[in-house]
């Protein structure tokens, strides 16, 4: 798997993981797609999202965050602001990925029921670009 625009959150250092995640979500003006877990769907989502992340619209870059073990960031995930979607409305086990807007709020949630492909992940990024 060749990833160019993906930050893989470390699983062995919770503090580092937390810091990286918070920097990406709250400090950088980028459009994020956060992928959760190590399932095949998650891997497919990371691959597709990484490729979609090469687009820059109106100067705003895209990045992918891969949290392979979501439990270590459960508090951070729970405290994310709801946007057009609310992470609290969906069981975390069923969430494959979600997108975060410039305003740090959750805009789109990709679930286990969705078809994971380039089109779906592109749509997640585009949703993150909306206000």
């Amino acid at each position, binding site marked *: 798997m060749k990833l160019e625009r993906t930050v893989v959150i470390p699983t062995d250092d919770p503090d580092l993981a937390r810091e990286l995640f918070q920097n990406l979500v709250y400090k950088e*003006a980028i459009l994020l797609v956060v992928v959760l877990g190590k399932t095949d769907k998650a891997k497919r989502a990371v691959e*597709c999202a990484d*490729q*979609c992340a*090469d*687009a*820059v*619209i*109106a*100067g*705003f870059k895209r990045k992918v965050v891969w949290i392979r073990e979501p439990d270590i960031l459960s508090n951070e995930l729970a405290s994310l602001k709801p946007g057009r979607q609310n992470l609290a409305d969906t069981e975390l086990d069923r969430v494959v990925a979600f997108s975060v807007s*410039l305003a740090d709020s959750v805009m789109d949630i990709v679930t286990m029921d969705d078809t994971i*492909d*380039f*089109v*779906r992940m*592109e*749509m997640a990024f*585009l*949703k*993150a*670009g*909306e*206000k």
Partner: protein
Amino acid sequence: MRRISCQLLKSVGAVVCCLFLADSGVTQVLSITEVERSGEDHPIILTQFSRPIVDINSSLVIQIDRDYVRRKAGEIFDSRQPIQSEELEAVTQILAAQAEIMGSFGPCLRSREECETILNSVSARLHALFEFVSERKGLRQRANEIFQTYRSPDRYKHIFALAAEEVERATAALRTAVEEQRVYFRLGGWMRNRSGDLRPIHIPNFDSYSDGEFFEAPRFTSLTSEELRSQLEAAREQADLVNQSGIKAAEGFISRSRVLENRVRDVVLCLSNLLRPEALRALSKKDSDILPEIEDSVASIQVQVQQILDGLGELRDLVNQLDYGADLLVTSGDLIIQGINLIETLKAGLDPLKQTTHFTIGLLESQKFKAELEDDLEDFLNEADTCKTDLDSLINDTATWGLEAYGYYFPRVYGDAMKMALEFGEEVKRFLLDDIPESTELDLRNTGARQNGDEILLRCALEDHVTSSDEAPESVELERRRLVMYQVGWHSTMSVGLVFVDQVTSDSIRLKNTFQAAPSCNLVLKHGSRSSLIYNSFWNVGLGLNFASPDLNLDTTPELGIGFVVTTAKDNLQLGVGRHLLGGNAWYWFFGVRFPAGTISVPGVITSDER
């Protein structure tokens, strides 16, 4: 105050009207307003059970409730409504903005706020575009291949091209689908005269028929001198006949009604005989061991026989009523209609009975009693045919006589207008639901010759689209309306007939009969009603002048008398007083009774008053 009262009354009327319409289940696709020649208009209140009256020379403004038609089309042809094109339009708009969207890829040299606005706008439109792509399986697969092949921003150009191709294909498919799923609205009009003849009429904007011959029913009518002369001559001959023969002159009328009565008796007898054949009695013996296999068939015959017997009982009652006087048959339209309906019912019952009997004979093939029964059953079938022929003949005669005598339209002649098949001709245009004209104006004067009592029939329907000329379109009727035309308001009529004169003031002349028959001519003023059919078609009171030529001095040369007359019942009853122009103080009373037998009139009873 008066104006407020009028408005209040109108409002109350409208509410009552709405309640009535709602109660009677009347939908109103067509709103009709009658516009008189004076310009005054009258909204026509339409109900299922009445025939609104319109003036014979007026115009009808017909408005079509297009929203209702569209709603109805949605309900009826729901599964075939055109597919929604909104999505295609939205995607087309995004495709049109491709250059602008593609220009936003890369760095943004504006303020952060402006760049965020651009990001929001572009993201929203691209999301809609990807949604369009994602919902179409083949398209989604091709889009994913583009992602694997191209990097940003080139891949978006290819996605645009892919979407454009799909929009073009879907638009063409939509156009075809809309073409195939068209629903048309049609409105047709017909004129039906009192003989029941039906002809289509031109409704402007809605068909390509030509206007009928322009005809305006004259408000004040008169007979031409030739018509007047010939009718007076005929009346003179009748008067001479009546003066010579008295009541015997009415024998033709009496005998005709007797013939009819006897025909009814013949039919009753025929049916009575028909229902007592030995075969039927044999079939009814359920305890017999001959018929275990045809039990159901026998039961069916018994039910049908009982129905006919019930109807026969009613027909017997009718004949018993005729015992009080054969003229009842022709003087009571209700009785005639009742009789014809009964006879029609009886006749309708014979066919299924015959079929069941045939069927039963078939079942008897293997029975040992077949030969014994078959002859009786064949007799029964032959008798049934005879009865049917008699019934047909009786219906025709009675209906014809009723029509000639009264102008009544009996079920056989008249049918039920609300059930008649009013077929649209090819001249009646088909309108797409968005193209239906909002209204039209039908000038009744352009519908050709017509008389009081003639009807205008309107029918509108929805039709689906057919692609082949061999295929009949599905047609769903939305509404049909009947309007009956009369001369509304003041108008005059002139008629020629017989009157029976009784002198009241001359001492010097002695009449041969109590009443002297004389030809006469009435010129009367009438007022047609806009609200009462029974008034227009029956009471129809007239007031005016009577010109008679009785021979009161018995010198075989008729003299001229002028008087005032009141007529009613379509001029069949006349009563008046006149002055004999012989000289002196010669006043007379007169009356006229036109029996429905047509041309002959017979004396009645009247009280004369000396002056």
